[in-house]
């Protein structure tokens, strides 16, 4: 069974580099790509009554926007490489959700781009790549 390579994709330049790097890797090994976009979400945040009412509608809009503005253009771009590519869009804690997707899909490796935030903001807020390198269930490649 060919390897599945999971690409964490948020539309940034770093994520695009990671996707291209993973595509090259998949092509050379005969593997396939799974492009994952995770929308940051916690079920423990506080919403106004209006936000509650509109949440389902907004979720639909957010998913559609992620699909058309982020994931679809990348899939179009990668279609020329000849690598089999699928995509998934989820809500949740970004690093944890990526790990779950990796486990569920049986991915052999995770590829993620480095965002290049300053040391200070990374220390304060952490980074997805940093968290992933600590908790990923499979090898994780951070593409600079």
């Amino acid at each position, binding site marked *: 069974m060919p390897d599945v390579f999971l690409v964490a994709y948020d539309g940034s330049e770093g994520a695009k580099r990671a996707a291209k790097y993973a595509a090259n890797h998949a092509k050379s090994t005969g593997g396939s790509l799974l492009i994952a976009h995770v929308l940051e979400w916690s079920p423990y945040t506080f919403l106004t009554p209006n936000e509650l*009412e509109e949440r389902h509608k907004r979720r639909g809009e957010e998913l559609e926007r992620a699909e058309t503005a982020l994931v679809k253009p990348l899939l179009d771009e990668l279609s020329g490489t000849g690598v089999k590519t699928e995509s998934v869009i989820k809500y949740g804690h970004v690093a944890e959700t990526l790990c779950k997707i990796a486990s569920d899909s049986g991915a052999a490796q995770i590829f993620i781009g480095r965002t290049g935030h300053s040391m200070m903001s990374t220390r304060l807020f952490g980074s997805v790549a940093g968290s992933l390198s600590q908790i990923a269930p499979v090898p994780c490649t951070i593409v600079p």
Partner: protein
Amino acid sequence: MKTFSKFAAPVAAAAALAAPQSVFAQSMDETINQIFANSTGWFVNFIFSPFPGTSFPWIVAWLVVAATIFTLYFAFIQFRAFPHSISLVKGDYSDPDDAGEVSHFQALATALSGTVGLGNIAGVAVAVGIGGPGATFWMILAGLMGMASKFTECTLGVKYRNEYPDGTVSGGPMYYLTKGFSERGLPGGKFLAVLFSVFCILGALGGGNMFQANQAHAQITNVVGDFPGWITGIVFAAIVFAVIVGGLQSIAKVTEKVVPIMGVLYCVTALIIILVNYDKIGWAFGQIFSGAFTGLGVAGGVVGALIQGFKRAAFSNEAGVGSAAIAHSAVRTKEPITEGFVSLLEPFIDTVVICTMTALVIIITGQLISDPNTGLYLLDEGGSTIQTVDGNKGVALTSAAFSSAFGWFKYILAIAVILFAFSTMISWSYYGLKAWTFLFGEGKTTELVFKIIFCIFVVIGAAASLGPVIDFSDAAIFAMAVVNIVGLYFLMPVVKRELESYMSRLKTGEIKKFH
């Protein structure tokens, strides 16, 4: 005469300009107060009229009986399902594929931010100030029983909500009264729904608005000194207007996030005061228990304590009122009963935990004055309320109790009260609007009319004095409960069917944990 008029008018105008601003302002407050008291008196009298030959208001009995019936009918569901409710809020049973939808926690938190507020701070002070420490006992009991009422109404709220093609939802008593009654082949559902909506609008303008503005103003004057209420009213109205009409959701979003922090801070401070005075905890509970059954000399005795306890509990946690069913109905769940389980935590957190803490702080810090010889509480000149240190009442009494331990706390409390008041107003403007659009239909103009009326009542609430405002607020909220509970009686078999089906599937493992 004509000459005199010509002469008198400019003189009067000049005199008015020359007169101190505060005199003009105070008379404006008095005028608003008078007009308001006169125009709402009949409604208040009807709702709080006692049983013939007694001093026991029929509305209090209505709430007590309903909460008891729901508790018995669902076999003490509030205690049986408590652990399961916590699991649901934690998200143990939430499908990960539904992430991004409204979670049980979010629905609970939003409903709580509409109820936790001045009822817990000022309302408890009013209850203890009139009914004595014994009112606390009845308040806790009402909170525990009210959990069953909340369970019933919120299950129905989700079951019979309207889901529109664009993905938005509308739910609440007006929908379950209409759809639930017609599904069961019962007449009068539409009539009850209309009646509920009318009372919901009044409740939104009363307890959800005027009482909040009134007590926020009282708290501000407590910190910065006396000034006319209509000034606070106009400032508040302008901010509320910016949010609900101008669409400045960012203000509401910030409030929604700060309010829980203030709530936690309030509870932690209360807990510290209670723990520092640990030697008085036993005595305070003694006062609560003996007051509940002997009255300890308060006006109206045991019945007075009971009435105050039940009234303020219902006003604070809104169990049986129907408002929470509007907020809870937005949750994404395949099982309406799960939202019932989650909602029963609301009266527990609101009344059993937070209200009790406020009451304990007031009692423990010795704000209520009693006769050292007889141990009975001393009443003020009117004979209706207990004498307090410095004559404080309402939110000022709670503020004094907290400040006696931490002098700086009155500033924190002032901010908390303003934020609580504001978040409750935002929640109730939404509940009121839902009732309004149910009556008059959706549409920008009809919605704008309600929103403007809502803002006008902010000013009236801040300017009027506590007595008429609290009477009208109680009356409007309880009027909602009258209609809602009639509906709940007819629809509770639906809830029971849902409950039995869910519990059997939970037992067989058909409903499973995801986490």
